[in-house]
């Protein structure tokens, strides 16, 4: 009132108050951006630099990384579905009670009584499935584009942990409804943890050294699935594993940035055919901060020595693409939730097993193997696969084909042939086992130890292994061997999962269609 500002007409105190009040929303939004709205290239960069959430990503993104065929957005789908599952999961926690019977009743309440409860539960269930699925194919895309190579080996290793934690999240969540499906799937799972006894028992080691029994005990907190197991699974599901996942994701994303963005072929710039004629040359945008800080990272990145011409500002190009993937993922989860309800069977009954008792779909391939030997199918082969996958980037030290689909010696043709070989082998073995049975039917009295060693699962693993040794020698390349082996295992996983899901009925017998299942 006494000292009006520059060029401002004199105002009453009340007038200023009203004026300021009117401008609060706009000023609030302005205050969120430390550097003003992102409407020029420079302010867009500052927008990224000065934003806690965005600075994990680089201010400029290479055009190669933005091509759909580079990633198919799969990592982002995995992240999006995790975020969706986290939000819906927290909402479900308002009503869920982790105690037997009460758990079942609370899920029933959520499903039938709580407003929007069924919808939330459906989205939670579906986003969890989408997450597992997208993590698996994200891994496959990273593998097939050879994007795990130096300096990205460690991020592949981090990814292995992400995979295990993702499966763990899903598995622990499976028990929480405490219905028949949950109870028997977890009973089977816990006994798989105990299955090293299949080996320690016949050689009389169990009383002295019993890793299987210990694993089951630690998992369940008891020798059967009960209240202790439920609270353990609950704690893992809502606290321990999500926190672990967040920590690992932090490393995963940080390393992507520090490893120089996504992997790309050495001649990516040439293939893209020079910068977009409309792109603003990166070096002349008169930045307050020099590009050397932002666009040229340490020596190993393909950007060294080159300008940033083939890069575009991450805001909006990358962030809009990420937002689009998020929205698409959300849309898919919502649509699936509208058309299909999450299952809820009868209350868990420890005296009457569900028949057939099926694990979640991504474990049904293993369940198919477990039907011959719990230890081989549930512990040995998954262990070999996890360790084998983890070793890939440390064994394949080649350069050729990085960042290219099916890159490396042999290429797409090798992958196609391996797919045929892998499919043929697994189908043949399964056909034999289903039609003619296995050792115990042929030679009654075969000791289990022999079946643990020789069953369709181990035979399949062996054949695939020998095949890849042959490929390594034929092409004189580790990458070619890896392409062959990965493809074979992918086919094996696919076929076993399909059989376990759609062709197995009561007593784990083979049926061409569920309509042929005997009524039970």
């Amino acid at each position, binding site marked *: 009132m006494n000292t009006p500002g520059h060029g401002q007409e004199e105002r009453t105190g009340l007038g200023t108050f009203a004026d300021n009040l009117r401008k609060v929303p706009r000023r609030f939004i302005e205050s969120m951006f430390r550097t003003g709205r992102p409407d020029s290239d420079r302010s867009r960069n500052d927008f990224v630099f000065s934003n806690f959430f965005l600075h994990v990503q680089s201010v400029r993104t290479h055009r190669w990384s933005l091509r759909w065929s580079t990633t198919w957005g799969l990592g982002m789908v995995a992240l999006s579905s995790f975020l969706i599952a986290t939000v819906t999961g927290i909402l479900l926690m308002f009503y869920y009670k982790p105690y037997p019977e009460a758990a079942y009743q609370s899920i029933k309440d959520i499903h039938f009584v709580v407003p929007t409860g069924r919808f939330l539960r459906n989205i939670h269930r579906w986003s969890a499935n989408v997450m597992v699925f997208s993590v698996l194919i994200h891994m496959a895309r990273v593998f097939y584009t050879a994007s795990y190579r130096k300096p990205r080996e460690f991020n592949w290793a981090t990814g292995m942990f992400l995979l295990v934690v993702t499966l763990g999240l899903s598995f622990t969540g499976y028990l929480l409804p405490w219905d028949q499906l949950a109870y*028997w799937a977890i*009973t*089977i799972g*816990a*006994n*798989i943890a105990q*299955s090293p006894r*299949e080996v320690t*028992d*016949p050689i009389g080691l169990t009383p002295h050294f019993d890793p299987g029994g*210990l694993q089951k*005990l*630690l998992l369940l*907190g*008891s*020798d*059967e699935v*009960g*209240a*202790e197991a439920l609270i*353990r699974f609950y704690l893992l599901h809502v606290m321990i594993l999500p926190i672990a996942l967040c920590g690992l994701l932090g490393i995963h994303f940080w390393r992507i940035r520090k490893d120089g963005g996504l992997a790309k072929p050495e001649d990516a710039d040439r293939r893209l055919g020079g910068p977009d004629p409309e792109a603003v040359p990166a070096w002349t945008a008169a930045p307050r901060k020099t590009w050397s800080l932002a666009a040229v990272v340490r020596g190993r990145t393909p950007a060294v020595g080159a300008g940033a011409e083939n890069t575009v500002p991450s805001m909006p190009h990358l962030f809009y693409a990420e937002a689009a993937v998020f929205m698409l993922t959300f849309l898919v989860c919502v649509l699936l939730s509208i058309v299909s309800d999450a299952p809820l069977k009868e209350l868990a009954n*420890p*005296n*009457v*097993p569900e*028949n*057939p*008792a099926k694990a979640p779909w991504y474990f049904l391939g293993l369940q198919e193997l*477990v*039907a*011959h*030997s*719990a230890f081989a199918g549930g512990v040995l082969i998954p262990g070999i696969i996890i360790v084998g996958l983890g070793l890939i980037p440390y064994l394949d030290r080649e350069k050729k084909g990085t960042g290219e689909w099916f890159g490396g010696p042999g290429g797409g043709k090798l992958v196609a042939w391996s797919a045929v070989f892998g499919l043929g082998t697994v189908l043949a073995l399964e056909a034999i086992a289903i039609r003619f049975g*296995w050792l*115990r*039917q042929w030679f*009654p009295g075969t000791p*289990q130890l022999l*079946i*643990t060693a020789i069953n369709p699962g181990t035979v399949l693993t062996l054949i695939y292994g020998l095949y890849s040794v042959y490929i390594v020698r034929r092409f004189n390349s580790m990458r070619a061997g890896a392409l062959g082996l990965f493809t074979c295992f992918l086919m094996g996983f696919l076929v076993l999962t399909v059989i376990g899901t759609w062709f197995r009925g*009561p*007593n*784990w*017998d083979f049926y061409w269609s569920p309509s042929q299942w005997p009524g039970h």
Partner: protein
Amino acid sequence: MSTHSEPSPGKPSRLDPEAMPRRDFLGIAAASMAAGACGFAALGAAKLPKAAVLPSAAKKFKVTLPESLPSGTPFFPEGRSVVVFKDGDRVFAMSTVCTHLGCIVKPAAMGFDCPCHGSQFAPDGTVLRGPAPKGLPWLSVRSAGGGAILIDEGTVVPPGTKETV
């Protein structure tokens, strides 16, 4: 401070090295003790997930077999995963928990079938068809007086052990 001859300032000789400064020594000692304490605490905490007494329901229970139960016909006590047989004036009991992955077996023409992965067991519990690695365990049975028997699910006895009651 030091009792021995002064080294030339700033130039400790190899024969007469400078003693570790007291502050450094105390710092290192304190840090390693703290680390040691944390280590022991962690070791202790590692025992947490395994309770000393398992919180499972009582394993022993009493049951009275019906007078008219014929020899060789399975009898399933209510709410237990156990099957009891009479053999003349003797009885024996087996667990009905499949030795493969813990499903509950059901009586069938040949003995018992497991619904989960198709294991089959003979009436005496031996494996007829995989993937079960072992036969159904026989359980301890004792007379509890008054026609009742006491079954202990926690005590496995050699197959063929029958009790006169």
